[in-house]
């Protein structure tokens, strides 16, 4: 059996295990279902590793059901194609699922097998989406990921906000997916194929009216942009991330959001690169990414619901990722992948830690938790490390990726924006850490107009905060974030994988049987002195901001400016209303804005 042949098993294995769990779950008991789930996740990780290793030399192309393309380059079948990045993301998804299973060892006691089956199906959806080389297949796995995600989000049915958040998540994502299907249909009507490489090949060889290509791209990308939470498609994310069980949040922020951006980049580089006006694409994704980064950072700072805070920080960071991908430069995309990967592991660990707090103290509110976790020393260290890593503290991988992005883009405003986002989001995280773990600052009386954030805990027991099931996964994740910065082989491999994404032609040719070796690695990320200095400065700034915030964020500066900032903050909060109608209206408008920006470019 070659890697090519077993590639589909990355999807089939977790799916099959999910079905087995449903069949035997009633009788098998809690322990059995834990073990079987972990087994499937570990096996999928192993397969993913094998695929990544193979794909880092040459793309692994697996035409399914024996229908490989004929001499005319057309095929009736569909394919999975793993390049280093796709296989890498698939591996990340499986590995994070392993950790989520370990972390959630005692979750949902009464419906354990259902929870585990949903988790495995979610994994299967992510694997399929990451590896698929077929547009319609991408839609199917997008929906599979979605359906499992909605169910997982609402699984705490006793929680009022969980069911509402899940509904917003489900409707907005499904709507985006249907628009994507519309775009896929437009491409099919024009080309008469569904496989990414074949569409890419054909679309480049024929003249196409710009308005048609534009609509096809906007619609197809719509669903992926929703998943990636690019403004103004991002509203659902905070609602869903704030309410899902903690291990599921770690998967959402750690892989699912990144997969959305991956989907946009995949269809752009394989199909639309060179067909769509490049300037328009750059403009659109830069503007939307920058807006998302700023909005996410401002919203993040204003939260006292810890998970919501982390969720908005994810929106801010993915916005940075989007505007980097927009440049289309191989080095910058490589840097962005390193940055987002390091962000993913750190953010996942933060979600797990916050979930631990929720289970222990029955609260997720920054002020209600004030000084309550003082005794949990190891967790406090891990939490503050996570916050500092977000701020860009060397030698965490985030700082390395950030520095590499800045070096390869060399645009001052991007550097400034990245710095700002790091400082504000990390400042918010550190602020909560200082308050909750160290009891720093004033025990602020809750404002009268704002009730404390409420959430039902994930489990009925109150697990201790130095429990190995909590600290183990957290340590692994933070360690991975650190190693990404320290081990040159790791950072080099990740950057090379990201850079390979840009090579759409290579992707097409590999699928049609003319494999080219993986592109030679261009510049590799190294610690430049200025990166280290910038990282230290942003960390210090974030720390200062956190201290200022923990002490009650007393206004400094001229009255007029602070009033204006407060007004903007209130306006933004009002826009994130939790109202389904608002979110769908923004989605429609987002499609329009995207179209207009693409046209303007």
């Amino acid at each position, binding site marked *: 059996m070659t890697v090519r042949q077993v590639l589909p098993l990355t999807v089939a294995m977790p799916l099959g295990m999910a079905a087995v769990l449903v069949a035997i779950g009633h009788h098998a008991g809690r322990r059995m279902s834990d073990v079987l789930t972990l087994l499937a996740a570990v096996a999928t990780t192993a397969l993913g590793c094998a695929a990544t290793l193979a794909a880092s030399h040459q793309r692994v192309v697996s035409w399914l059901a024996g229908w490989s393309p004929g001499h005319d380059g057309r095929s009736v079948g569909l394919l999975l194609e793993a390049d280093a990045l796709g296989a890498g993301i698939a591996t990340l998804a499986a590995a994070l699922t392993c950790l989520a299973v370990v972390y959630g060892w005692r979750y949902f006691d009464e419906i354990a097998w259902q929870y585990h089956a949903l988790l495995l199906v979610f994994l299967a959806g992510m694997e399929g989406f990451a590896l698929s080389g077929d547009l319609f297949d991408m839609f199917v796995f997008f929906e599979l990921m*979605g*359906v499992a995600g909605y169910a997982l989000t609402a699984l705490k049915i006793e929680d009022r906000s969980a069911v509402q958040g899940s509904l917003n998540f489900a409707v907005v994502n*499904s709507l985006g997916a249907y628009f994507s299907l519309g775009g896929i249909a437009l491409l099919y009507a024009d080309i008469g194929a569904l496989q990414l490489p074949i569409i890419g090949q054909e679309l480049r060889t024929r003249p196409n009216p710009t308005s048609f290509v534009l609509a096809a791209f906007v619609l197809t990308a719509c669903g992926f942009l929703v998943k990636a939470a690019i403004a103004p498609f991002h509203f659902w994310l905070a609602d869903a991330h704030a309410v899902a069980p903690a291990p599921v949040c770690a998967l959402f922020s750690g892989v699912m959001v990144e997969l959305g951006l991956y989907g946009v980049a995949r269809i752009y580089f394989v199909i639309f690169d060179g067909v769509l006006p490049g300037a328009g694409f750059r403009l659109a994704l830069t503007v939307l990414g920058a807006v998302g980064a700023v909005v996410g950072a401002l919203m993040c700072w204003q939260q006292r619901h810890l998970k919501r805070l982390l969720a908005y920080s994810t929106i801010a960071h993915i916005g940075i990722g989007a505007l980097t991908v927009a440049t289309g430069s191989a080095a910058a995309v490589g840097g962005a992948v390193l940055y987002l990967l390091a962000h993913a592991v750190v953010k996942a660990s933060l979600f797990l830690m916050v979930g631990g707090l929720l289970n222990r103290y029955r609260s997720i509110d920054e002020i209600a938790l004030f000084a309550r976790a003082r005794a949990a020393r190891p967790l406090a260290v891990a939490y503050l490390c996570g916050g500092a890593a977000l701020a860009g503290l060397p030698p965490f991988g985030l700082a390395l990726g950030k520095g590499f992005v800045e070096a390869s883009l060399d645009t001052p405003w991007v550097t400034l924006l990245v710095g700002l986002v790091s400082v504000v989001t990390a400042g918010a995280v550190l602020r909560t850490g200082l308050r909750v773990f160290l009891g720093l600052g004033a025990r602020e009386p809750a404002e009268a107009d704002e009730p404390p954030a409420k959430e039902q805990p994930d489990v009925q027991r109150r697990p201790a905060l130095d429990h190995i099931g909590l600290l183990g996964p957290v340590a692994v994740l933070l360690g991975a974030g650190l190693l990404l910065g320290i081990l040159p082989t790791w950072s080099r491999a990740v950057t090379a994988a990201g850079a390979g994404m840009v090579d759409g032609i290579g992707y097409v040719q590999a699928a049609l049987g003319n494999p080219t070796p993986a592109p030679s690695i261009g510049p590799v990320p190294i610690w430049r002195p200025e990166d280290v200095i910038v990282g230290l400065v942003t960390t210090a700034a974030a720390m200062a901001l956190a201290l200022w915030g923990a002490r009650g964020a007393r206004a400094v500066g001229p009255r007029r400016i602070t009033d204006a900032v407060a007004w903007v903050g209130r306006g933004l909060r009002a826009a994130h*209303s939790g109202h389904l*109608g608002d979110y769908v209206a923004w*989605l429609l408008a987002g499609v329009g804005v995207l179209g207009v920006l693409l046209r303007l470019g």
Partner: protein
Amino acid sequence: MRSMAYFPYFVAGWLMVMGAVGIVWSRNLVRAIVCLSVTQSGTYVLLLAIGYQRHAVAPILGAQDENTRPLVDPVVQAMTLTDIVVSAGVTALLLAIAVQVARRHRTTDPDQLSTLTG
């Protein structure tokens, strides 16, 4: 009939947009879910219209005479079938969530659901 050559596409687009607007409009989550399925219906019409060929027959092969008349595109029909299954599943799940929303909030009016502001 030449002028009618793009008509089905516009029907599809109309259904997709109307469904989305209906969600914005909804004062009831069940209604929003129904509107979502209307949007999805737009994609069925779009797909089938793309695969249609005039004077062609349904894509079922006879035992012998498979080449006498052209068939309409079976691929879009298979895609639409998948889409319908997706629709059934998503709708079922959404309804289940809506039932739980009604249980927890005692209402399904989006204007009155207010646990997720800001």
